């Protein structure tokens, strides 16, 4: 058992999410920085579907009542060695503390966090308030059982630095134009690409609100359409809402461009005040970016 001594700012149980249920209004959810989460599980030798903890801005304090092996990845925690397997002796505590650079830290425990599957996943869903063991973020005093989802030995050496994503902004985030590109003037996307967008404090697992200093995009509402994580919605006031994994499954603001799957991990680590530049790429470049990350994962099998 692992005891939650302090919760941190917003700590939830996540896994790879529950894709395929959007037609019921349920977004896929799962870890926002999917890459860091997959790596954390790999380091401790877990199956890729094992559940772990996602911490935001400030992490929890955990007490282990039996020996464990953990890995901390994603946004940097000063409280422990990051990106490597760390033994945690019975009776010891892990203090994640403040997260920086980056915003979200993952804590994988060898065996995985054992909570019931809800709709095929252990992830906490913010919109539906279900899953994640408690149907809410972790609270002080919660006890977390360790599961039996270890399948490989823990990695003996730290995850290679050359196989990690940038830890801090300014961020360059690659996008595919559309799907509602025709709701905008022809120069709108190039002008967005030339703008240093600013992340506001309004960030959660559903999405990030951003400002576009010096640029006022024009957009009208559209007939409700399905939405994806990474969709850059333009609101009638000209602001941006970039949807993330717990996004609304449908929406009525036009989407000027969509962040590629590989770069959703970068957005998960963007902090309020960071600048983001959206760079328009084609599908071939997006496929290469995806292959690069999956290639890193294969190299470290």
């Amino acid at each position, binding site marked *: 058992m692992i005891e939650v001594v302090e919760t941190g700012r917003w700590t939830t149980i996540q896994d790879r999410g529950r*894709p*395929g*249920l*959007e*037609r*019921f*209004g*349920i977004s896929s959810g799962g870890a926002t920085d999917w890459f860091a989460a997959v790596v954390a599980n790999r380091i401790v030798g877990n199956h890729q579907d094992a559940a772990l903890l996602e911490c935001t801005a400030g992490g929890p304090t955990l007490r282990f009542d039996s020996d464990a092996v953990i890995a901390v990845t994603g946004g940097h925690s000063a409280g422990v060695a990051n990106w490597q397997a760390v033994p945690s002796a019975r009776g010891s505590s892990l203090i994640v503390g403040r997260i920086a650079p980056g915003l979200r830290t993952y804590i994988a425990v060898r065996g995985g966090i054992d909570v019931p599957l*809800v*709709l095929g996943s252990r992830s906490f*869903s913010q*919109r*539906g*308030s*279900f*899953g994640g063991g408690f149907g809410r973020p972790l609270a002080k005093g919660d006890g977390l059982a360790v599961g039996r989802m270890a399948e490989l030995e823990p990695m003996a050496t730290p995850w290679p630095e050359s196989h990690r994503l940038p830890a801090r902004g300014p961020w360059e985030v690659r996008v*595919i*134009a*559309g*799907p*509602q*590109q025709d709701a905008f003037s022809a120069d709108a996307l190039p002008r967005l690409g030339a703008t240093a967008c600013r992340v506001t404090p309004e960030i959660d697992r559903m999405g990030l609100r951003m400002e576009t200093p010096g640029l006022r995009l024009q957009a009208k509402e*559209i*007939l*409700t*359409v*399905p*939405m*994806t*994580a*990474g*969709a850059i919605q333009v609101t009638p006031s000209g602001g941006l809402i970039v949807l993330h994994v717990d996004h*609304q*499954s*449908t*929406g009525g603001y036009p*989407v000027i461009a*969509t*962040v*590629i*799957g590989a770069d959703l991990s970068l957005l998960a680590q963007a902090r309020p005040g960071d600048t983001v530049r959206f760079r328009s790429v084609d*599908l071939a470049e*997006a*496929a290469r970016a*995806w292959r690069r990350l*999956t290639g890193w994962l294969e190299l470290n099998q």
Partner: protein
Amino acid sequence: MWQIAPAGDQALLVTVGRAIDPTLLGEILALDQALADSRPTGLISTVPAYASLLCHYDPEATDPARLEASIRRLEGQLEGSVPFGAVVDIPTRYDGPDLADVALQTNLAPAGVVAAHAGREYLVYCVGFAPGFTYCGALPDQLAVPRLASPRLRVSAGSIGIAGRQTGIYAVESPGGWNLIGRTALRLFDPAADPPARFRPGDRLRFVPTS
């Protein structure tokens, strides 16, 4: 002509129109069914809404051009009508916090708003936004009012709202910008149920006033 556009690098969005129209919904549902039957390589799941269908694919199993070609082959081949199903009654208490305001905006008495809202059958066009949220149309013209200027942070499950030519039922507590005119005790979302949402696009329902 169907518009098929990338929605990022792992989904395609098929758009067949831009109106709340039973014929367009029928076309989308027929396309959805045809793809479920033919299962093109790499297609993972689909999401229907009004006049569009989102197709999630595995970029390692297919490429978007190939998937687009499989979808295009179905254009013009589908029978585009909504299957006729039973009409489900939604017992409704018309005591929403915005009922009086909607009455003012529409020059009706509150009882007139209720009569106009309850007096017809609706088609479910989409389940989306939040888990189980049920979008229905079309609302009579005389009830068309804009969304609230400032959305509520919390709308409770079972609330029934209107906005534009749409009416909808909140299935879980969520933020919301629609004008709330009533509520139902029916449970529309249950993560332990299969399927987890009570309604799906193409279903028909009507609101039945209760006291």
